[in-house]
């Protein structure tokens, strides 16, 4: 990574509160972060820690209750549909469950064509579009000729998630937010998905944010790691710092509770 780190996405005092009055739930509680260009960041937390809410705020799918998000050093403004559309050209996502990520009534062609249209390619000739889709599919080792006119649910989970990466390949966003991209698919396909994601990042230099509960995955892929507990970041730093030499009790516990294979797994701590 370059020595001169350039800020890509950062947040100041970001807060999300659900509900009103007595039934308020603070999902995300004044979090600050700086994600740099080209970096692979992991946000690690257990279920209910607010990591998915944070992800949705970053994507602009839900509003923020308090705090600001800065995109490329400027305050993010997504108050109109037009501005939102502009923002979404820069930030894209891969969701956890490939089976529910696709509209089951749309063919795979539609999924990919949408991406081309979003990049302003709606007037391209048909042959050019097919060429682009074929290129995107071959990037993730899928054959577009075999996929055309098929529906996403005819693919396996791993293939669907690869198609998701092909989508990102076409969109070429500056930021990719991957929300548990491998937790619903078999371990044998997990490495494939991670490989393609990393290949894509290396080619495009996009900032990649992993949202995960799997601390091992976070350690494997990321440059820096944020540990989230009950809506707050309790610890952050480079992957080695946080996972090999955790300082906070919560992080220590989290790492302790994950089964080990190279070292002895201490069961007495529960």
């Amino acid at each position, binding site marked *: 990574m370059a020595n001169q780190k350039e800020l890509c996405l950062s947040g100041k005092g970001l807060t999300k509160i659900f509900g009103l009055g007595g039934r308020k739930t603070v999902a995300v509680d004044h979090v600050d972060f700086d994600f740099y260009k080209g970096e692979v960041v992991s946000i690690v937390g257990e279920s209910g820690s607010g990591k998915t809410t944070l992800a949705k705020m970053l994507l602009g799918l839900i509003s923020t209750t308090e705090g600001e998000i800065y995109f490329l050093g400027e305050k993010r403004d997504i108050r109109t549909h037009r501005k939102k559309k502009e923002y979404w050209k820069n930030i*894209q*996502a891969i969701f956890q469950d490939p089976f529910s990520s*696709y509209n089951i009534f749309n063919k795979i062609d539609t999924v990919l064509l949408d991406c081309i249209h979003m990049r302003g390619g709606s007037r391209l000739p048909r042959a050019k579009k097919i060429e682009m889709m074929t290129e995107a599919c071959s990037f993730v080792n899928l054959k577009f000729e075999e996929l055309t006119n098929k529906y996403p649910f005819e693919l396996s989970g791993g293939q669907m998630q690869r198609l998701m990466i092909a989508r990102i390949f076409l969109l070429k966003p500056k930021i990719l937010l991957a929300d548990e991209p491998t937790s619903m698919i078999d371990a044998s396909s997990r490495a494939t998905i991670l490989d393609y994601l990393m290949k894509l990042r290396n080619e495009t230099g996009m900032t990649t944010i992993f949202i995960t509960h799997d601390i091992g995955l976070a350690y494997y892929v990321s440059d820096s790691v944020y540990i989230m507990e009950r809506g707050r970041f309790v610890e952050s730093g480079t992957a080695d710092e946080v996972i090999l030499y955790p300082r906070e009790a919560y992080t220590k516990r989290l790492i302790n509770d994950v089964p080990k294979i190279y070292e002895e797994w201490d069961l007495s701590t529960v």
Partner: protein
Amino acid sequence: MKQIIQQIFRSGKFIVGFSIFTTILLVVIVYPLLIPDPPLNIIGQGTFFEPGIYVSVFDSISSPQYTLNLDEAAAKRIASKLGEEDRLAIKEWLIASGIPEGEIEIENTEKLLDQWFENYDPAKNIPGMTNAKRNYFIRLNKAITGLLSDEGMSITVKNAETGVLEEKGTIVPSAYVNVNEVPNVRVLPLGTDNFGRDVLTELVAATRVSLQIGFVAGIIATLIGLTLGLLSGYVGGVVDDVIMFITNLFIVIPSFVLLILISFSIGQDQRGAFTIAMVIGFTSWVWTARAVRSQVISLRNRDHVNLSKLSGHSVVHIILTDILPYIASYVVMALILQISSGILAEAGLSILGLGPRTTEVPTLGLMMNWAMIYQAHILGKWWAYFPVIITIALITFSMNLMNTGLDQVFNPALRD
């Protein structure tokens, strides 16, 4: 799509419901083509003619006659003519003539008549017999002898000029006509109603109108419910609050009461079948709206909707392509239920006399209404109301069955 249809037609319940419903539809379409009579034509002078084959007496006289010598003919004729009262009178006479009661079988016409001819004597008196009674017995004897006689009946026609009755011919008891050769035969499978209208023709027309009312009401209700449900579910916030406020308001007021009030205030003259359908539609959208809303709320946070948003699609596009197809099966099921409940609502309204005005079209509810006003149920004229009940039951039953079948296909948790 093809797969879904195949799946649907694998469900036994749907097939049964669908066949019943298509049969009803076919009858409603085909019957008027075969018998193009206006359904509200009054053909019978008098009320509640029984179901049967009506043969023109006038035509049968002039039809070719055939002689058939059938043994039982006379006995059958007498058996049908000899009433309960006559038989009891004969029994009375026979007992008075000293025949033991055990030997008299009043149902056995042949034996009874034999005993009668053996013992009857116009000159004899039985104890306690009044003069009137005596004359009755004389008349009875004459009638029975007349029935048994082989002599024909003569047909006379009044000469228009002279005013003298001229005999045109005689009809003997063994003369028969072929029904096929009688030009005027009317089959009334379900008889006539209180106005003398053919119940079957009326029923078919009524079923058609009721189905139309059901469809219009169902489509209106589903459209309103769907639009409001989609809006309040997807947009949320204030829009949701306002729509839910209205919906809840409609829920607290029983819709049938509302229906009665609206129907009543429209007035008899303004109430056509279409108006009634609209009124029913406008009062029964509430549950569709609520159900659609809850479905949409669970859909709007799904990943594919989020992905569609990230692809920069507009709200309308998302609702139309990412939400609507997912709830389409649900909406179709709701529509089927709305149609069947629309038919029931019309029937309910019409029975109360608040249905469409009575002069134009029959509906299932109106037929029930007429049957009730003219006391068909008290008089035992079952054909005036029972087929209507069966038709209503069959329509709603078949639609609910289709709905359950669809539910089984679209909701895998219910599959067996």
